[in-house]
């Protein structure tokens, strides 16, 4: 297999999968995170469990393609099929190690907007809403978001905080506001990875995907992006990661379309 022959989405999945540690209980979101869990479980995190807000727990990826987490193959072999409030109970207890959230718009402090662009009373764009995003952002121990890197999506401040990151970026913002979980760990985009300091605050550029540059990332980011001292090139997907991705997304439904 030619390793350079991967799509941006496949790289994002591989990077996301590396955020999962062995033994983690992972709150698996829709789309790319479903694949990230499958890749991690097949590779470096064989005992990671996945939790799905529809009301499922699994310790192995579903056999075959999933268009949604509620597709019948995701129920076959499940460890638990239940109601959503039972799954939320685990997260409310602080038992979810890592959550994934899809983002439409994110700001320098990791706050996500998936609700309204512009005034909520007269929105310029009405986005679908929180889903479980706000719950994951507030209650999971740490979380990661994946998004397309565009200047209009990575903005100085989001106009609406659906899923809070580090709020206004001031020290201990989450603690002062009573948020249970630790907050965002990383933003994985189509061209780079942004990371947050251990105690929260402002995102900085941690790695740039192969074929892209720091200048390009900064130009495509809507705030004056800090660059980490040890910024590096994002490691490419391994053969094992790529073969797992292609096994679970054989038609490229998630990873080969824009």
């Amino acid at each position, binding site marked *: 297999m030619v390793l350079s022959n991967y799509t941006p989405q496949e790289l994002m999945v591989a990077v996301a999968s590396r955020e999962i540690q062995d033994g983690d209980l992972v709150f698996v979101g829709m789309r790319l995170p479903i694949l990230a869990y499958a890749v991690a479980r097949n590779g470096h995190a064989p005992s990671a469990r996945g939790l799905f807000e*529809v009301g499922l727990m699994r310790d192995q990826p579903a056999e075959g393609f999933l268009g949604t987490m*509620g*597709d019948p193959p995701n129920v076959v072999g499940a460890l638990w099929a239940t*109601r959503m409030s039972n799954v939320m109970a685990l997260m*409310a207890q602080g038992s979810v190690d890592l959550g994934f959230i899809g983002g439409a718009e994110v700001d320098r402090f990791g706050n996500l907007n998936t609700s309204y662009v512009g005034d909520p009373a007269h929105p310029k764009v009405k986005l679908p*809403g929180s889903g*479980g995003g706000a719950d994951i952002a*507030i209650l999971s121990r740490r979380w990661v978001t994946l998004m397309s890197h565009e200047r209009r999506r990575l903005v100085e401040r989001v106009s609406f905080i659906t899923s809070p990151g580090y709020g206004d970026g001031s020290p201990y913002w989450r603690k002062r506001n*009573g948020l249970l979980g630790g907050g965002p760990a990383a933003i994985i985009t189509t061209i780079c990875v942004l990371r947050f300091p251990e105690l929260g605050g402002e995102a900085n550029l941690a790695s740039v995907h192969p074929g892209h540059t720091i200048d390009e990332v900064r130009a495509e980011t809507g705030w004056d992006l800090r660059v980490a001292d040890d910024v590096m090139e994002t490691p490419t997907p391994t053969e094992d990661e790529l073969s797992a991705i292609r096994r679970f997304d054989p038609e490229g*439904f998630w990873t080969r379309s824009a």
Partner: protein
Amino acid sequence: MTMVEAIRRFVPDRSTVALGLALEPLIPFAAGHEMIRQGRRDLELVGPISDALFDQLIGAGCVRQVTAAWVGNVSEGLGHCYRRACEERIPRSLEVRDHSNFSISLALWAAAWNVPTLPTRSLLGSDILHTNPGVVARDGLVHVDAVRPDVAIVHVQRSDEMGRAHAWGPMGITEEAGLAADGVVISCEELVEPSVTLSDPNRILFPETKVVAVVHEPGGAHPSPVQGFFKRDHSFYRDYAEQSRSVKGYLAWLEQWVMLVPDRTAYLNRIDTASLRITRHRMSEPVDYGAE
């Protein structure tokens, strides 16, 4: 009871209707389409995430308010009718009560338990607290007001005529919605004898006293999946997303799949059901309810 009669009797104009409660599976599309055909107006829809059905009802002008965590098309993204209603008031204006998945569940449990609010640690720090007056932060917790539907519509694998419904797979917020609602309309793949449902009372979703109608509607959840019966019809969602990008496209879709379709049987005749039907069955082991 037929779907026509169930909707006529139990979903009048201005009803608060909970549906799509198991998230992506078991969505009662047949019931929603019948509401559109009967020209329902000023409905309030209640749900967790909605995979296309809310969008269709909004586009048809049936809806005054949405109380939900997410409205769109799960595998495709945005709900175009939802956007047009919120941004341009097409075909009419829409009130939105934002929730998260957790908070809408709590709102329904509050109603089910007949208390005004339930507290949670979720939503702290979210601007949802500023757009939805029904979620209020106080003393380090968020208090979620009860949401009480007039009717919950639930598609299940099987039910008897008394409304003892068996459903399996992930349940989302189905149970709290049914308990919170004044009444439940069951739509089922199979209508079975009470001897079947009563053989496994743990699997019965709702007390029969809550159920006001049982409609035998095989395929009534298409294009959403039904464990053991139907796969999800991914391309149907994609086609809907593409066609509904414009008002004209949406209306053409509506004519083809709802307005000119008299009932679910005629609808299913237009679908390649053979390729969607689940044929590799996996039966669970029976349980022993022995008592003496």
